[in-house]
């Protein structure tokens, strides 16, 4: 493992985006029961054909119940000076509740590890701007302009752990199995064109939204320019960050219901839409027209974790299903699992004696949505508005 270049991508690679093939996994406990990280490590590390030791990461939701009121900033820091600068800077804009190293177990062959730090933080409350909006602005600024510091996650009661290495190494380094979470996301990488860069590993996170992604977004330029209109700064030189920001924009800022958001990102074909009932046509055509720049194109499968409006796990693949995604539900129907490959579920069966009620393949461009307290809302095999009771109240001009 090589430990340098973790807060910013080296200069000569800045014009290149990172293209990669990956393994992704995730699961949610619908009763919010917290599990330690052993299962997610098992699910991910069995997908070893999908990684080559150049990056892996985990996101756990529910890991900091003691500080659940505060934004948990997970940071990669180059050196002590940068850390001092950061702490001074953050102090000017809010209260640092707790500032401490993220515990790591440094493998013996490493001589220059990054500083992995976490800060529980509360911005000064303002009338004019919500705490969330303040935090987004702060994180964009830190990641864009603040030298030697990189925020890898910023949600409440959650955190991202990622870096350069094989998935089992990263799990080991961060001691993932010691955290307890009700929702886990995980990712391992097979980058085709990238230097080792810690910040570039997945999951990508903004506030409560985390994304792990397998694939390549061919609409990156369109999505990036759309997001920039709304003040997002795409600084990570990778297509996955646009997915995280799109979920943040649509769900947190614009309050679009989750099933509609997934339709906007991977909409049905017009030939399908035109065979639907009038009100669905109105809705779908306007969703496609309004969010034409948010649509994700190219091969992808993603697993997304949200803690807003309710803790939710989402799985989605592209409209042509050029990347794999498999889903499973536990025998007691309390947990929903997603993975690139069924091998993850088989591994759980073997190692943890886990039994699944059902294992299935979602349809292309169709979301799986599992929400705490609501269960498996959509299993990824429905038509766009199946199960949804849609009312169209606005009138249509023209």
């Amino acid at each position, binding site marked *: 493992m090589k430990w340098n270049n973790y807060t910013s991508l080296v200069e000569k690679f800045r*014009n290149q985006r990172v*293209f*990669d093939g990956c393994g992704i996994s995730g699961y949610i406990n619908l009763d919010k029961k917290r599990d330690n990280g052993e299962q997610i490590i098992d699910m991910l590390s069995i997908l070893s054909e999908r990684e080559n030791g150049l990056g892996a990461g985990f996101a756990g939701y529910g890991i900091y119940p003691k500080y659940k009121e505060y934004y948990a900033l997970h940071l990669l820091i180059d050196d002590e000076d940068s850390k001092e600068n950061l702490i001074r800077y953050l102090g000017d804009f809010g209260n640092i509740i707790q500032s401490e190293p993220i515990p790591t177990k440094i493998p013996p062959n490493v001589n220059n590890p990054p500083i992995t730090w976490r800060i529980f933080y509360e911005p000064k409350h303002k009338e004019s701007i919500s705490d969330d909006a303040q935090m987004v602005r702060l994180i964009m600024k830190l990641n864009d302009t603040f030298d030697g510091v990189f925020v890898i996650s910023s949600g409440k009661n959650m955190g991202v752990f990622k870096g350069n290495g094989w998935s089992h190494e990263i799990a080991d380094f961060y001691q993932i199995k010691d955290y307890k979470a009700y929702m886990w996301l995980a990712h391992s990488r097979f980058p*085709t064109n990238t230097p080792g860069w810690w910040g570039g590993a997945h999951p990508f996170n903004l506030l409560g939204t985390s994304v792990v992604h397998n*694939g*390549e977004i*061919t*609409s*990156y*330029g*369109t999505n*990036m*320019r*759309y997001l*920039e*209109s709304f003040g997002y700064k795409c600084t990570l030189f990778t297509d996955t960050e646009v997915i995280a920001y799109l979920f943040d924009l649509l769900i947190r800022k*614009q*309050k*679009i*219901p*989750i099933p*509609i958001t997934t339709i906007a990102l991977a909409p049905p*074909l*017009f*030939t399908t839409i035109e065979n639907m009932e009038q009100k669905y046509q*109105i*809705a779908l*055509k*306007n*969703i*496609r*027209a*309004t*969010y*034409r*720049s948010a*649509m*994700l*194109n*190219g*091969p992808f499968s993603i697993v997304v974790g949200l803690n807003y*409006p309710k803790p939710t796990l989402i799985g989605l693949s592209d*409209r*042509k299903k*050029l990347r794999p995604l498999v889903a499973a539900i536990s025998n007691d129907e309390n947990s929903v699992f997603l993975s690139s490959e069924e091998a993850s579920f088989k591994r759980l069966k073997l190692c943890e004696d886990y039994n699944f009620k059902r294992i299935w393949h979602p349809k292309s461009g169709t979301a799986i949505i599992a*929400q705490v307290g*609501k269960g498996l*809302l959509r299993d990824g095999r429905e038509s766009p508005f199946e*199960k*949804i*009771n*849609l*009312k*169209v*109240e*606005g*009138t*249509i*001009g*023209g």
Partner: protein
Amino acid sequence: MSLSHNFPSYFHIKVDREICRKCKRCTNHCSYNALSFNGEQIVSDDSKCVSCQRCVAMCPSGAIRIEKNDSYLPPHGNYTQRIRNIIWSQSGNGGVLLSATGNDRPIRSIFDDLLLDACQVTNPSIDPLRETIETKVFFGRKPKKIVFSEDLEDPNNISLKTEFMPNFEIDSPIMIGHMSLGSISYNACMAIYQAAKKLNILAGSGEGGLHQDFYEYGPNIITEIASGRFGVDINYLQNAAGIEIKIGQGAKPGHGGHLPGEKVNSLISQTRMIPKGSDALSPYPHHDIYSIEDLAQLISALKEATRYTVPIGVKIAAVHNSAPIAVGIVRGGADFLTIDGFRGGTGAAPRIIRDHAGIPIELAIAAVDSRLREENLRDEVTLVAGGSIRYSADLIKAIALGADVGMCCMPVLIAMGCRVCQQCFRGLCSWGIATQQEYLVKRLDIDVARNRIINLFHSWNEELKEVLGAMGIDSVESLRSNRDRLRYIGPNPKIADILGVKHAGE
């Protein structure tokens, strides 16, 4: 008799007398009187030839060839023949020179300096013959966001609250630009509108009003309100898919329309509501629009007049300051915005303006798209870009730079038979396109012309799908403003900067 200062002709008509049958067909077809029969043989007057190629096409024995006049002036790299001709012409007639078509100066095309990306390995390309690739576009204003209300108890209860503005669905991101009845013939207009209807794309009416016969094509026509207000009445407003306020035109920024009186016959006079034979010269500015707030008023007046059922837009010429002007126009309520680059066409324009005013459309698209994004207005409007979109490659690059829809005219005229002789303002078009003379107009077969336009845009759309497929994109909206998929190979990195496009190899 004084010395003739006539400049040498550009062309030489060569008639092969051995195979000429002396049928005189060429003399009938030459509307510029360059060919005649002297009782013994066909004779030519090279000075009148414009190389429209009608005689060549009509000669049954293939006996005619138009050649470049080799009797050449003493060469000079700075005072080119073009410059000397301009001086001779002006010193002879003392007037402003008229011209037609678009800027003909050999200025480097930026479109030609852009290269497209394609997929390899990590992102599979898509085969458009086997899989769906979508090219539908919504023309009109969109909300910044859609408002839903969600039942917190039952997330499956969703209400859609937004009131949507009118949008027109088109099947390809293509609009046939504004060519008025007057600048082009009735038959040419009919062919264009029929093709637009069949293709379900849009066509512009130009500022010449809308002849009653064209009302049935209204659902595919964007009518134009220009400074002359020619032909504007309630039918004109209400028989349209959208209305465009024409502030400027790429070929002649700062000028209004020019229709020489020679082209104003009774048909044109009726449709434009002006006297026969009178020059139809639109005022340079709209005299009720001296600034942006006046434009906003006209936009809302038109929205009222059409009961908010169609999108109302504004067309400007691409000039140095297009980006902030565009922002003002969008804030002023325009549902779509058309920008027309300095190479855009015209039926008649002062040559000095056509050849020297405005900026390239590529730069204007990039600047306007970026500026609208900075103001977070871009996705609400439809951005139409024209001004020398010559073929599908230009269309594709225009979209990747940031346009929703590409607008073009010349390819349509060329498809119908135009040979680009650039004499449109004379009303003598031997192909029946840019003329109003009955005997010439009849030469343009509406069905043939319509089918050729349909074929042309069908092939553009297929080529667009081929490129999208190669890029691994299955819907044209994901190409829009996707500058990441373009690379620059031209000589001037500053251009790449303005375009927001990386250099090839980066």
